[in-house]
């Protein structure tokens, strides 16, 4: 009897296994939408062969913000203070522009305490991925409304929300994000395409993912529940992502589609569904969100993509080499400079 050799380990294009993209075991509730998003992150970074050491994970405070511990264990992570992850991420990206920034936050973290820093991150177009795991409630403090909860949605306690929601996608569109998408934690295929496109994008990607809280906001009367999404999700289009290392001409779909070439040469392939939608038209994007709100539809898909706008790091005229680790000769001017300045002050 001979022992069969173990099957070769499955690896990605840089020779890493999917295991190398996982993190520690999740401590979130079973069924939490955030766990699905963590799984998508693992898959996408693995499949695209992103070097884990190049990724820096950022989060604020809340259930969603705990999740960076549960994926990309080989990447540095920074769990910051409530609502202020954008400033930590911005500082790190300034220091080392070779990093791929991946922020994960929640609707409380972003739309309530963090709305200011979120808006300024958007305004600066800091090149990073910013995922909002949006469930409309504060999970970690046991179920209070957040600022993305819809008007007239109802808490488990029966409390009705009498304030209108912030739409983080609309805010991101209005003030300068260059890739804006909405998805649903339960839609594996769409979320993968959006995440992969964000990885390829040079600029700020804001991805609002409706991610039901099974413990505090998955009941009748909630507008962020699995069942509500089943009835109210409206897909703008079908999305395919063709990585730069694959041949784009292999699979030409039937029907109407458009390709958007991303920074790294990958393509976002957008296939038309019922309506015409051009995701490079920012005004159109704002308009469809307004209409969807009125019709109680949750629009998902890529709302906007702009591959031409300079990022914040480009505006600052930074070189490719991380400024954090430049040698002394580059960051301490020579003695002659000090002498010159002293002479001017005499």
């Amino acid at each position, binding site marked *: 009897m001979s022992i069969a050799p173990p099957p070769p380990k499955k690896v990605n294009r840089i020779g890493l296994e999917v295991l190398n993209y996982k993190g520690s075991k999740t401590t979130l509730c079973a069924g939490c939408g955030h766990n699905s998003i963590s799984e998508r992150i693992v898959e996408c970074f693995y499949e695209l062969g992103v070097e884990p050491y190049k990724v820096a994970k950022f989060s604020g405070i809340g259930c969603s913000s705990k999740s960076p511990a549960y994926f990309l264990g080989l990447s540095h*992570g920074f769990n910051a203070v409530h609502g*202020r992850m954008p*400033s930590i991420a911005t500082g*790190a990206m*300034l*220091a080392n522009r070779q990093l791929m920034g991946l922020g994960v936050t929640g609707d409380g973290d972003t739309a309530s305490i963090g709305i200011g820093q979120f808006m300024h991150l958007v305004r600066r177009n800091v090149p990073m991925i910013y995922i909002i795991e949006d469930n409309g409630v504060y999970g970690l403090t046991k179920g209070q409304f957040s600022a993305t909860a819809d008007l007239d949605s109802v808490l488990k306690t029966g409390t009705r929300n009498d304030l209108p929601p912030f739409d983080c996608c609309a805010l991101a569109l209005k003030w300068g994000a260059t890739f804006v998408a909405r998805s649903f934690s339960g839609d594996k295929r769409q979320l993968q395409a959006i995440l992969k496109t964000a990885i390829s994008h040079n600029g700020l990607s804001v991805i609002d993912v409706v991610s039901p809280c099974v413990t505090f906001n998955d009941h009748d009367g909630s507008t962020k529940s699995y069942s509500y999404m089943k009835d109210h999700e409206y897909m703008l289009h079908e999305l395919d992502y063709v990585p730069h290392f694959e041949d784009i001409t292999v699979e030409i779909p039937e029907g109407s589609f458009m390709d958007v070439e991303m920074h790294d040469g990958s393509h976002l392939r957008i296939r038309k569904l019922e309506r015409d939608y051009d995701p490079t038209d920012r005004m159109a994007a704002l308009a469809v969100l307004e209409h969807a709100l009125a019709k109680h539809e949750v629009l998902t898909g890529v709302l906007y993509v702009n591959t031409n706008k300079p990022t914040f790091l480009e505006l600052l005229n*930074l*070189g490719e080499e991380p400024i954090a680790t430049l040698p002394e000769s580059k960051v301490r001017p020579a003695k002659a400079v000090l002498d010159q300045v002293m002479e001017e002050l005499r």
Partner: protein
Amino acid sequence: MSTLEVSPVEPLSGQSNHSVINDFSIQVATVNGSGSQTANTVLMRSIFQMGIPVSGKNMFPSNIAGLPTWFTIRASKHGYIGRRKEIDFLIAMNPETAREDVMKLDGGAAVVYDAPLKLNELRSDLHFYPVPFDKLVAPVCPDAKLRKLVRNMIYDGIVAWLLSIEMDEIHKALVKQFGKRKAKAAELNWGAAKAGFDYAAQTFTKTDPYRVERMNETAGKIIIDGNSACALGAMFAGVTVVTWYPITPSSSLVESLIGYMKRFRNDPETGKATFAIVQAEDELASIGMALGGGWAGARSMTATAGPGISLMSEFIGLGYYAEIPTVVYDVERVGPSTGLPTRTAQGDIISTALLSHGDTKHPLFFPCSAEECFSMSIEAFEFAELFQTPVFVMTDLDLGMNNWMADPFTYPEKPIKRGKVLSAEDLGQLGGFARYKDVDGDGIGYRTLPGTNHPNASYFTRGSGHNEKAQYTEREDDYINNMERLAHKFEVMRKHVPEPVIKIADNAKIGFVAVGTSDYAVRESCDQLKSEYDIDASYLRLKAYPFTEHLKDFIRHHDRVYVVDQNRDAQLLGLMRLEFEAELIAKLRSLRYFGGLPLDARTVTDEIIRQEGQ
């Protein structure tokens, strides 16, 4: 000091029979926004160019135009450059304050004033020099719109004649002030100064005793404000990430830095910036970005004042607990709340030393001069990375925004050291690391930077409870061990902070302890106490918190130690109380001033005499 009731007065008559040379203070009272800053700087600089030790202090309102502002220039042959309480020479340009300004003077002072104000009617014990400014400015400045700005330069000419300041030096200072690009403006102002000088020469008989005489005490020295000196220090420290939010009195620190970095820190080969300076949306974001930068390996900094420090509180706790280097400049102003935004204080000592909730404490550096703003900036960046923690450089409005005479700065000799950072090669040899493990016994763990290409490089930074491996924990022993290590690290800092400057007077029973700009008043007061009261006083000037052992020794060595505080609640003394044993605390006395003006020697001396019961 005299009050509004000045009687009986001895009228002055005839010319002064004695001279006071190179030892007086001039106060210029103007309205802010009237361009007086140029005239005042030129006046100060021309005295400096004559080799006479000089200081200039701007007391200005939190306003852009239209409110009273005072500029005092002190010339001191003894080299005292702290504020002098007594005004010898008043230039009264502001009708709103002129009366009160005149009534406050000691008898015998000189007053140059705008003739229509008729200030000479107020008192008979002063030397009055009326000047018809509007009449004089018209012929030298045909453009009526510019007259408001040029008008002030006339008093430079008047004062030059009265004090024997050489007009050549006024001209030189003017050219320096305006630079080559604004030669026309310099010429216009020079015309006004000359008109003033000529008018004074033709009209006045000098009756006051004050004048200058050329000395050789400023050769080679520079004039610079503390904020610019900090900026230069940061640039030569190799700062790469700078974040800020405008706030008086710290704004000019970063603005000055922007100017220097644009000139000297673009890579000559690539033209690319070797730095990022970001004006953040608020102080919460500026400290967040500074910490993000520090975490990713940059030498990062932010600059702010008290209100910004309050806002940064939460993030500083994270910086302390997650152990992230950054440098925070606190250019202190008068609080609490908005307080007096344009007045000076040392009122953030306790709040900053213990900033944030839970058990936190932070190293504070206290420069007292432009030279130290430069050198201690470099030390602060080094220290922050060595100890992986936020370091505060505590200056104040007086030091930061006023112009100071200084020795040229010394180029840093030691190469930049980045602290305990493990590279991919290091990790290859070690196999791995535990971020918060005290390997060397100094409480400082080893860190890695994001982007380090090694499978064992990553760790998870968090403000929540963590163990040696940076993993989440709520375990009692993990928490206690970590906090004890942080406390130990703070103890190790004591041996590495800049050491105090100590001057022991023989037979002294009393001593002073002070920080920062209190230095000028304290040093002058020591001389006053000796010459006027025959009291010997020692002096220890702290340069940093945590305190070194020198402080305890100093207190033991003396019967009574006066801790000088520019705040109401004796904050510096309070910090000592927190950690000293009872017998040392019993020796401490408090000497406080918190009126918003730079501390002066007379206030210190009078208070010592009162407390010493003499």
